[in-house]
C-alpha cells in the first residue's frame, strides 16, 4: 500500500476532493466544544484538541434512527358478508428505511477506529449471533482516516488494552502529523478507493482498485513521501506511545472480575456514581439500544435509540422485577461487560482505551481505578458480601 505526503495547506483540498464522492465528517470546534460534524468547504478541522467530546460512533450507529414507517387503513366488510369476511378489513403498509450514504470520517483517533472494529463483532453476526443490516450498511459505506495522536492525555490507556496512538486496526488510512503536513499511510483497499480520485504527483499515484472508477477530481495533491518523512513519522509515533502509561495489566482481569462478582468493593467504587449514562454515550464501544414504536392515529414509526446499562429500565422486566435494582449492580455491569462477558462471547475486548468516560463522567469515575481494584484478587482478609 502507498505511503504519501500531504502538505498542511493541502488538507482542505483533499477533504474537498473526498467530498465529491462521499460526505466528509471531521472534528469541529463550536463554542469551545469539539464534536464530529459534517464537513463543508471552509470548515476548520480541529486536530489540536486530542479527542472530540463524543466518539464518531454516532455516524455509523446513530443515537436515534427510524427504520420502519407504517400506517394502516380500515375498510368496512362487504355487504352481506359472513364469517371472517364480516370483520372490518385492515390493511397495514410497511416501509423500511435504511440510509447508508458513503462517508469518510477524517480526524478520528486510532482508538476511535478500533472502537468500530470491536463493535463490528456484535452487529456483524460474529459467532452466528445477530447480524444488523442497519449498522453494517453504514459501516460498509464508511471509510476511516485516522490521525496519529501527537499528545496523548494522562487519561489515555490504549496501550493497556492492546492499541497504540498510531494503531492501525480499523484504520483505512493513517495520517501522522510531521513537519509541514502529514505522512499518509494507505492501509486498506477501502482507503485506496477513497483516495483514488485525489490528484497525485511525483509518479506512482494511488491506483484505483479494480472496479472503482476514479472521478475527475483535482486538488489535495498527495506527493510521494521521502525517507526522511517516513523516519520522522516513526519518531512521532514512538514519542506518542511513550506518553501513554499503561495503568493496569490485562492479565487476570477477566478471571478476577468473575471471582469478585459479589465483592463489597463494588459498593465502595460506585459511591460517587450518579447512575447517568454519560460514560456509555461518549464511549466508542458501548452499543446498547432500545426500540420504540410511536403511533399517531393511523400512522407510526419504529425507531431505535441508544440505551445504557445505568438506565433503571434497562433490565426491568414486565413483572416489575429488576435483577439490577441497585446502582452497584448496574455499575458492575459496565465494567464486567467490557472485560469479561463480551470477551467471552466475541473474543474481543469492548474498550479501546480512549479515556472519554473518565474525562466526562460528572464525578470522574475512573475505569482504570475500577479495573485496578476489581481486577485484583479478593484480599485474604476481605469479607465479600453480596453486591
Amino acid at each position, binding site marked *: 500500500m502507498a505511503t504519501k505526503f500531504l502538505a498542511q495547506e493541502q488538507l482542505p483540498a483533499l477533504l474537498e476532493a473526498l467530498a465529491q464522492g462521499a460526505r466528509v465528517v471531521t472534528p469541529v470546534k463550536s463554542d469551545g466544544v469539539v464534536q464530529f460534524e459534517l464537513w463543508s468547504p471552509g470548515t476548520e478541522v480541529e486536530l489540536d484538541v486530542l479527542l472530540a467530546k463524543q466518539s464518531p460512533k454516532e455516524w455509523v450507529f446513530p443515537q436515534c434512527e427510524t427504520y420502519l414507517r407504517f400506517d394502516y387503513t380500515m375498510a368496512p366488510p362487504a355487504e352481506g358478508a359472513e364469517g371472517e369476511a364480516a370483520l372490518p378489513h385492515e390493511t397495514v403498509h410497511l416501509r423500511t428505511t435504511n440510509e447508508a450514504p458513503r462517508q469518510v470520517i477524517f480526524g478520528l483517533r486510532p482508538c476511535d477506529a478500533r472502537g468500530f472494529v470491536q463493535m463490528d463483532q456484535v452487529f456483524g453476526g460474529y459467532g452466528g449471533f445477530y447480524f444488523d443490516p442497519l449498522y453494517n450498511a453504514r459501516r460498509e459505506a464508511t471509510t476511516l482516516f485516522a490521525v496519529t495522536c501527537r499528545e496523548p492525555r*494522562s487519561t489515555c490507556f490504549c496501550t493497556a488494552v492492546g492499541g497504540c496512538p498510531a494503531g492501525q486496526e480499523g484504520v483505512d488510512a493513517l495520517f501522522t502529523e510531521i513537519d509541514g503536513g502529514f505522512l499518509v499511510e494507505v492501509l486498506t483497499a477501502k482507503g485506496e478507493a477513497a483516495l483514488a480520485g485525489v490528484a497525485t504527483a511525483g509518479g506512482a499515484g494511488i491506483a484505483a482498485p479494480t472496479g472503482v472508477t476514479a472521478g475527475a477530481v483535482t486538488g489535495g495533491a498527495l506527493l510521494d513521501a521521502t525517507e526522511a518523512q517516513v523516519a520522522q513519522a516513526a519518531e512521532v509515533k514512538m514519542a506518542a506511545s511513550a506518553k501513554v502509561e499503561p495503568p493496569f495489566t490485562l492479565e487476570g482481569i477477566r478471571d478476577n472480575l468473575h471471582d469478585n462478582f459479589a465483592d463489597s468493593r463494588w459498593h465502595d467504587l460506585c459511591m460517587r456514581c*450518579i447512575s447517568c449514562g454519560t460514560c456509555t454515550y461518549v464511549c466508542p464501544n458501548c452499543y446498547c439500544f432500545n426500540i420504540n414504536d410511536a403511533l399517531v392515529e393511523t400512522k407510526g414509526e419504529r425507531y431505535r435509540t441508544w440505551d445504557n446499562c445505568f438506565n433503571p429500565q434497562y433490565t426491568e422486566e414486565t413483572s416489575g422485577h429488576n435483577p439490577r435494582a441497585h446502582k452497584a449492580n448496574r455499575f458492575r455491569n459496565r465494567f464486567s461487560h467490557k472485560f469479561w462477558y463480551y470477551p467471552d462471547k466475541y473474543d474481543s475486548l469492548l474498550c479501546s482505551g480512549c479515556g472519554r468516560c473518565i474525562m466526562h463522567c460528572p464525578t470522574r469515575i475512573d475505569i482504570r481505578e475500577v479495573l485496578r481494584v476489581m481486577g485484583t484478587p479478593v484480599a485474604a482478609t476481605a469479607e465479600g458480601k453480596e453486591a
Partner: protein
Amino acid sequence: MSRQDHIREFAAAALAEGRVDYFIGWTTGFNSSEVIPAFVKDPAEVDRLLWNPLCHHNLVTFLKRNMPDPPDAKIGVCVKGCDSRTLVALLQEELVDKSRLYVVGVPCDGIVDRRRLEKEFSDEMVDIAFPEKGKVVVTTRSGVQREFDQQAVLLDVCTRCRYPNPVYADDTAGPAVPEPGREETEPDWGDLADYEALSDDEKQALLEKVYSTCVRCFACINVCPVCVCWDRCVNRSRQPELVSQKVEPKSNLLFQMVHMFHVAGRCPSCGACDRACPVEIPLYLLHRKMNKELYDMFGFEPGTKLGEKPVFQVFDLADRFGD
C-alpha cells in the same frame, strides 16, 4: 485553622464517635486539576478531604433516595451556601430524614469554572493551584503554566450569589464570609437579560438550538439534588410515552421543560445540572428563569428557611400572578 482543617476535624470526630457511617466531602480526582466527591468511612482517612475553589459538586445529590448505601446510613455531608439551600428544600418536603444527617456548612468565596479554564488550552490541564487568595495557576501536561484572576474565572452562578454562607448546618467550617445585604438588595438577574429580550419565536429557536445536542444521558436529572423521582422519572416513561424517546430538538426541549417544572420551587439554581452535562448545554438558563418568575410573583427564594413551606404548597390570595 483553615476551612479544610475544620472539615477534617468535624469528619474525624463524627466518624470516631460513630455519629455517622460515612462522611461525604471533596477530594482530589485523577489529577490535581480535578476535584471529586469523597466518601470517607475511616477517621484515619480524613486527610483525603480537601476544600478549595474547585469543590463544585453539590453533595446533597448523594442524600437523595436510592443514593445512601446502605439505605438507612447515617451520613455526614459538607454543604456550601447553594448546596445548603437544596438540602433545606428537601427537608421542607421531608424528602430526606434529618435525624440521619450531620451537616457541615462551608462558607464559600465562589467556585472556579473549570470548563472555562479548560477552553483556554488545547492541552490537558493536570494541575490547578491556588498559591494565594484570588490567584489561580493552571499547569498543562506539556508544562505550560498560566495564571488567572480567580474573580474572572468564577462560575457565572457564583458571581451573582446571595447565599455564600450555608443557611442550614450543624457545624460550620470557619467564619462566615461577607454577605450582600439581602434585605436591601434585589437579586441580580442580569444573566437573563439577553434571553428575556428575545421574542417568543426567538426564544423557541434558541432553546431548540441549545438542546439539539442533548444526548439524554440523564446526568442533569440524576445529579440534580432536588430531582427526586429517581428510577421513576416521567421522562423515562414508555407506556405511555409521555415524553418522546426520540432524540431530536423538540423532544429534548420537552424533556428539559419537564425537569424544570418538576423542580420549580425546590431548585435554587445551584448549577449542578449545568456542570454535569457532558455536552455543555446551558441548562442553568431555564432554572434561573423559573427562579426569577417565582421571585417576581411571590418574593420566593427556594430553600432559604427550614420552617417555610415551599411556594407550591401554599395558597395566598395576596399572591400576584404575573402581568
